[in-house]
């Protein structure tokens, strides 16, 4: 049973933001509630007011505009999992969304809510980190764009101000000849290890033009692993493949894993290594698929 609270149902972002500003810590934005209500049921948090933002129109669209995919923050995981536009342009995102939590959570939970709650054991943030994603946050008087790398500040903490709402997630279109893989691992209700790899291939020089790697779930926030990325850039596929174990070790250590009920620190770091190996081979496999009929891709 939940403790009593008062429900506000603003119909504009400005109104919602004003309410959040006015009531401060005693109010919270509420969308799908799949994280928030759990915390409230456990008694871990209490809010005197929930600001239901689902009546604000226009926040659940998925569009292609100005070379970027714009996802409304109120899009449910289910909507994203079934979006034809995303299936065409970002199939890896679709596959990730299809496997978030369970079917009932996907029906009700929103991408914006997931990101804003910043639960460490979650999938979307890790993948969005390797896509050059920018988040749009709005409040009564202003609107700003936040690069994904700056969004997560700590476990359950984002850089959003208390009266700010996440309204859109912008993902730039990925260049041709690139591939994107998200892999996760876990047997508990939430994922234990998540890994996202983006590789862009320079066909003429048969080398990896760009590599972006993010590890999530094991540390307080998902994070990019610069050092491992640097190891792949400019290398031929074969040479990069020979560096995978080392890169995996580095990624494991840099992921800031901590031992808990999901596994010991060593175990998680090891899984990171395994997932990187698999992701790399998946990604190169995809590149090979894409490059079929255009000659050998492996250098």
């Amino acid at each position, binding site marked *: *049973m*939940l*403790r*009593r*609270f*008062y*429900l506000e149902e603003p119909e504009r972002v400005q109104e919602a933001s004003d309410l959040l500003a006015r009531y401060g810590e005693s109010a919270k934005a509420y969308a799908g*509630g*799949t994280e928030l*209500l*759990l915390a409230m*049921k456990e008694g871990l948090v209490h809010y005197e007011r*929930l600001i239901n933002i689902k009546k604000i129109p226009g926040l659940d669209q998925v569009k292609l505009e100005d070379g970027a995919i714009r996802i409304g923050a109120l899009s449910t995981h*289910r909507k994203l999992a079934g979006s034809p536009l995303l299936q065409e342009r970002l199939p890896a995102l679709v596959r990730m969304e299809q496997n978030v*939590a*369970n*079917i*009932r*959570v996907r*029906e*009700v939970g929103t991408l914006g809510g997931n990101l804003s709650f910043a639960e460490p054991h979650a999938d979307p943030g890790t993948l969005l980190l390797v896509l050059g994603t920018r988040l749009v946050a709005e409040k009564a008087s202003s609107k700003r764009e936040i690069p994904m790398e700056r969004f997560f500040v700590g476990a359950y903490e984002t850089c959003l101000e208390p009266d700010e709402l996440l309204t859109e997630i912008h993902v730039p279109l990925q260049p041709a000849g690139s591939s994107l893989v998200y892999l996760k691992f876990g047997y508990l*209700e939430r994922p234990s290890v998540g890994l996202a790899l983006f590789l862009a291939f320079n066909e003429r020089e048969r080398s990896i033009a760009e590599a972006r790697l993010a590890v999530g779930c094991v540390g307080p926030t998902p994070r990019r692993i610069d050092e491992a990325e640097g190891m792949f850039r400019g290398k031929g596929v074969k040479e990069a493949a020979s560096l995978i174990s080392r890169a995996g070790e580095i990624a494991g250590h840099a992921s800031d894993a901590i031992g808990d009920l999901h596994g010991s620190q060593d175990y998680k770091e090891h899984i990171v290594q395994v997932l990187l190996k698999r992701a790399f081979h998946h990604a190169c496999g995809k590149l090979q698929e894409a490059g079929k009929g255009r000659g050998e891709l492996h250098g």
Partner: protein
Amino acid sequence: MADPGLRRIGGQMIPITLTVNGVIQEIEVEPHELLLDVVRNRLGLTGAKRSCDVQVCGACTLLLDGRPVSSCTLLAFEARDRSVLTIEGLAEQGRLHPLQEAFIERGGLQCGFCTPGMILTAKALLDENPQPTEEEIIDFMNGNICRCTGYKKIIESIIAAAGKMKET
């Protein structure tokens, strides 16, 4: 459930209209009331169960506009202007739904605690994909947990139900 008189003191009442098993209900709920409690305690439909209470097991599954939701973690007012289907609403004029028949015939239940949620979720699957492969069944149903059966008979029941529904 709390005494109705107490409930109204200092409470914000939200009047809602919703369809439950095809019947229009007009009720007032407080914002903090959970759909599971309203369905079980106010409407007397106790097929949906409070089991894990953290939306992972599926025993509280209801179909909201035909889609499975965890009623233990859904605020009741979210069902306003929508249709709710509970296990009690599957049978029509005393005739069991093919899924219910199949689960009984094939032994897709033992203690029966997870069964209402299983059957409702299976209904959502068959409504969307009338002839699913075993893999598709497993993928769709993997958010519903059963402690008794080992799942094999549940899958068989769903396949059998799909067969029955194809014939009709």
